[in-house]
């Protein structure tokens, strides 16, 4: 299990295109990957390979999240997804 915390920095949050990109990237890894919002105690880790689960989280700009993975390629999975969030999905 490997995890990293960050905050959504792109203006539109994890909706629409960014959400699709995020899920598509998560699917490239064998590990189980999850995203959990950290500003809501009731929030459970959501399957990062499910577009619906990701959308349902309603992750807007500024939301603190934890990306976690469990499996053979867990470190690479988390680092790659972390980078994607840091890159603001190409938005300014």
């Amino acid at each position, binding site marked *: 299990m490997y995890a990293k915390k960050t905050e959504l920095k792109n203006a539109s949050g994890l*909706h629409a295109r960014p959400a699709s990109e995020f*899920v598509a990237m998560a699917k490239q890894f064998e590990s189980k990957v999850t995203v959990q919002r950290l500003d809501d105690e009731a929030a459970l880790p959501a399957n990062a*390979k*499910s*577009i*619906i689960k990701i*959308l*349902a989280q*309603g992750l*807007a700009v500024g939301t603190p999240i934890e990306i976690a993975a469990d499996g053979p390629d867990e470190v690479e999975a988390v680092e790659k997804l972390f980078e994607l969030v840091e890159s603001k999905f190409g938005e300014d």
Partner: protein
Amino acid sequence: MRILKGNPVSRGVALGKVYIYKAFKADVHESYFEAGKEEEFFRKYQDAVANAEKELDSIVTAMSESSPEKAKIFTAHIEILMDEEVQEGVKEMIFESRTMPDYAVDEVYTTFATLLEKAKDPLIAARAADLRDVRNRVLRILKGEKESNLSSLRENVIVVAHDLLPSDTATMDRNRVMGIITEVGGATSHTAIIARSYKIPALLGVADATEIMRNGDNVIMDALAGKVLLDPEKETIKEYQEKLVEYIKEERETSQYLDKIPLVASGERYSIGLNVGSTDPDENFKYVDFVGLFRTEFVYMGSEHMPTEQEQFDAYKRVLANAMGNPVTLRTLDIGGDKTLRYMVMPKEENPFLGNRALRLCLDHIDMFKTQLRAALRASAFGPLQIMFPMVGTIDDIRAAKAVVNEVKEDLRTKGIAFDEKILIGIMIEIPSIGLIADMAAKEVDFASVGTNDLTQYLHAVDRMNPAITSHYQSMSPSMFRILGRIFAEFNKAGKPISVCGELAGDHLGALVMFGLGLRKFSMNAANISRVKRTLSLFTLEETEDIAKKVQGLSTEAEVISYIKGEVDKRG
């Protein structure tokens, strides 16, 4: 003649025959199969998924050239169809509880759609429609039925449906559909977005539309005023036929001005602002320079209780996030008069428009006022926000309101809560008494915005809610332009920003005169932007100044309007 009301999410007028569209209706019942057939039924589901993917793939291919935006909808459908959680959910129901595939699909998709509908973000909530759409596709294939859609209509029609799914709107024959009426849906629903992009008039939220109307009924759909006229009389039809011709002509000419830089013919730049009153995302933010009026009433009126600081803060922050970097002018609560709150006791007044409303009411309910100011100040740490007070009549009002702001600021500072220290504080000018001392007001505030609706009401002493005296409500009277000219001149002289956010700013004739009077900031509803830009582009600064001078010397509003109209018509 019967009239139905609805929410006009895509503007326009249409006259024609009703076509009631009923999409494939899944008739699913809870049912299970006997043990041992798990593999067989799971294969059925997998085949259905494979066929659904094929259908979607071919739509994406067909559309990717002609309309890549719509192709994206179907690409998103493939994502949903192939979603890991959806697939797992259905598989589990088939293998663990031997659920028939159709019931399993219905259950899983409905659960997820309900989940999305609960999202606070309207864009995400609207995605529930995509889930239902994909569900219907899979269920239809499981039943062995062919695709039914709006792609082969035999005549021009106004489509009436309970709801249109993204696949219905995307594949429909847009040359035959003159209008769309649905029983459900809001301004950010898929139907609304697609209707606007096709420029098909659309009225959503028309209650019981499919029950009341019948196939072939002749109706007039007025998606400017938000109504459907059933069984219209001959004169009404004639009136609307003229309206339609006029509307089409105007739209064609003005729409191309929407994304133009706002310039008058002699090259002077002015600013266009947007008036907003919800947290809905709006594509029009990209065509404007500022948000001249952010009405906060919806936060209060849409709630069952006094909204908390956090609820307000979230809403204000969301508007800032939507606004694409444009500075947002937040107007503090403007209730009383015609607007009341169900959870707040307000004594009945003889003259509510002259009564305890807006800023007066806020100063009277200081805790409520402070809560809003705290939420606004906190939001100011997240984007360019400025605060504006409505119904200011005297310098005393300004000072009293500013004292409360300072108190709240001080409290935030002590608690170490972030806000914009340089936040601008301004006022609405809508009571003549403050307009007449605009020079003194300008010294007390950072900016002002004129609310021409209330200014007309108070200057002319005409209750704008009283239908018996509408002819006395004259927002283009010579007296209005005299006081406006004075307000603009004083603020310009003081070097303080002045804008107009009332309806006169969105009226192209009013905007023209006000430009001549020295106004450079016009805030309006999105629907008026292109028209104002077009009209102003026809005149040089000098010409607008001549027009402004002239109207102040005319005796009646009718003369003013006919004179300005004449000047606009002369130039096309």
